[in-house]
């Protein structure tokens, strides 16, 4: 059971992780560099939330992003202060091409991350960099990207 769970979770993460490079990053700035490993749910994540993540993953694999979204939201209602859930949500938005919303969710994720998950924070900053770049905020995008890189060097 646990094997299946971690496998499918990995798939979700892999799928959502792949999303990060989906929107065009543009020639001016190299954002969206893939982290070496994927962000996993924190160790304290509760069983119902893991179950919902599993289901969200299934939906995402079948391309049913609106279903995945609904399941992630259910997970968020159970653990509203779980930074990783907000991060998955941001990735989903990124994949849906809703960059501005993705950036809001990524910032929310970062505001809740009190631990040392640098990778999560770096990824969130990458998402924010994407969104800012798309919005034409070049300096903002550069700043976000620098923060992502600085964090990436720490993990």
């Amino acid at each position, binding site marked *: 059971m646990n094997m299946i769970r971690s496998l499918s979770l990995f798939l979700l993460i892999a799928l959502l992780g792949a999303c990060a490079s989906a929107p065009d990053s543009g020639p001016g700035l190299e954002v969206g560099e893939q982290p070496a490993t994927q962000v996993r749910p924190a160790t304290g994540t509760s069983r*119902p939330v893991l*179950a919902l993540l599993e289901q969200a993953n299934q939906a995402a694999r079948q391309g049913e992003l609106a279903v995945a979204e*609904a399941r992630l*939201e259910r997970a968020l209602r159970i653990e509203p202060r779980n930074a990783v859930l907000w991060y998955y949500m941001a990735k989903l938005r990124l994949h849906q091409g809703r960059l501005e919303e993705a950036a*809001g969710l990524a910032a929310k994720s970062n*505001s*809740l991350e009190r631990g040392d998950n640098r990778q999560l924070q770096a990824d969130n900053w990458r998402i924010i960099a994407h969104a800012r770049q798309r919005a034409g905020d070049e300096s903002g995008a550069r700043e976000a990207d620098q923060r992502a890189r600085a964090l990436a060097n720490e993990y």
Partner: protein
Amino acid sequence: MPRRKSVAPRRKRASRPNRSRKGAARKRPRRFRWRYLFVGLLIVLVGYGAYLDFTIRTHFEGKRWALPAKVYARALEIYPGQALAPAQLERELKLLGYRDNAASRAAGNYTHLGDRLRFTTRAFQFWDGREPSRQVTVQFDNGTITRLQDQYGAELNLLRLEPPAIGGIYPHHREERVLVRLLDVPPLLQQALVAVEDRQFYDHWGLDPRAIARAMLANLKAGRTVQGGSTLTQQLVKNFFLTNERTLWRKANEAVMALLLDWHYPKTEILEAYINEIYLGQDGDRAIHGFGLAARFYFDKPLARLEANEIATLVALARGPSYYHPERHGQRLLARRNRIIDILEQDGGLDPASAQQARLAPLGVVSGKPGAISDHPAFMDLVRRQLREQYRQQDLTSEGLQIFTTLDPAIQQQAEQSLSRQITRLDQQRNLSGSLQGAVVITSASGGEILALVGDRNARFAGFNRALDASRPIGSLIKPAVYLTALAQPQTYTLATLIDDSPITLQADNGTRWSPQNYSGESHGQIPLFTALINSYNQATVRLGMALGFEPIATTLRRLGATRDIPAYPSMLLGAVNFTPYEVAGMYQTLAAGGFRSPLRVIREVLAADGEPLRRYPVKVEQTLDSQTVQVLNSALQEVPRLGTARALSAQLPPGSRVAGKTGTTDDLRDSWFAGFNASHLGVVWLGRDDNQPTGLTGASGALRVWGEIFADLPGQPLEPVPGKALEYHWIDPRNGQISEQGCPGAAYLAFIKGTAPRQKSDCAGGGERRKSSNPFNWFKGLFQ
């Protein structure tokens, strides 16, 4: 050629009149009169028939297709580790119409097994998939779910119950119908209607001549009307045009329309329309139409869950709701009900044992009748408003859409009861003779979902929705925006920065002078910023606001979510600006969510009648304020209930509940506000009078009491100070803003952006002595600020 042809007929035509003129000049008028009369009559008859046909079809189609949108509350999710008491779960199951029945393991039944609860859920189609029916056992320990198992003993991580239905969206605002589809109608009811009212229903053409003859005979014998010969179809037609007129002409019309109806539509549709349309009683000026509504009205449950005796009672009422009035003619109704049970037994619809059980059952009509089908009119009002932005009214009232909302029925009930209870108490206490009103908005702290909304002290009353429409000055609720604007400049202002609370007089361009005063009338000289905020000092706030400027404060308000124009004059700094409780909730939501603004949401998903997903309203967050700065402000708002104007809360909340909030009072005590939150929920309460006269209540003595009562029972996470990389926390002396220690009198635990905290240490003991001397009055002052 053309000429000849054209000429010949002319000649012919010309010859006719000649002939007739030559012939019977006297006979002609008579023959013509008859012919015209006959043709005329035929035209009138056909025309009238067509008119009747059009009328009855329009009525029937109109009713048949009008399937109102069905609105659901949130579906309760159950999981191990969840704080949920057995009583709460049982309440939810009852709300869903589950029965306490140890004998049945069918869907919709539950039973207690010691400290466990066993029940079988009903299958339900959600946006993200179908939940199958499951038989589960839930184990509790001390108000928490410890274990969730299915019937095979397998552990479940999560279970989602069906969402409770909370109402429908109807064409006319006050019209209430509980429309049912024939598929959802208990077969026993269908059988009973046909057996009792119209045995030949499935065979006749809309009229039953034999039944009419039988009825006439019976009536002649008795010398009065004792039996009706109307078919269900005729009764339905009659119900479309309810009048008390009982003329032959009317009956003839009804008969023709019944034939037409039967000709156009299948029996099943006619029966369905009958079940939804028939008049079954009166509640004041509200007519009870249809078995769906009648089931709610008489038995307070959905039609599908009626017992045999209850079905028979409703069928009895269909014959004459006032003749068989349950209260005035209970015995008469009981006798007829039992006759109907006999008929069902004879027809095999009920086995002898069930029939006997049904006969022995009391009438069981509920006395405390639910006032309305929409139990939560204020919330439904909001749902309707948000839907109207995206859907045509016609689609909402006729397409059978399924609307999934964010309402939490348990919290809603808690909010309704607390508001009603506290208002009744305060109203009496202040001799307000019933004029005190109020509103409550409760949201989820992080996602901005509306969990409860109350717009009247009588929550069932669908009148003025104060939660959405009472736009009132917010008084000191505005102060956090002023202080947040200051704290956004951490190099200039921290919570410990000393500011001036001495008297101030401002002069407007037109020469008018304004001298705001503190509520107590006292001035406090130089005090730390947080002391001014948590005690809601007006003089210090106006001085601070004037130093900051109106525009930056207006910007902060907009970032919090205010959409109105913020007036740029000094009294704005003390809240002389109008907002509704709903708008205030939107703004405080941004604080509760740490600087992230989410539009308040009431609808999660919309599905078509057949379960096809149509539209989602996803969670959206936008960072509009620096989260560290908001964290700093919130650390001070957390001290309001401990040390500031909301100290009365400690008597209401269980120990250990850490909440943040702010009281608000307006001039002459006209409006009483409290807005506050913990890590899970945000609540805004307003109390006041519709005529805007003084209530004698401050935020602390009025709205705070309602808020406290609601939050005392609300399961939720306490606010935790979480030091991040950018923040540090210190105990601060309330007099001088210097570093103090835990346990020192009045010391507040406050957040600072790293590097901005004060360095000087205060003398705890000395300060303690001085504070102690004035302490006895502190709690007293808190009540009135």
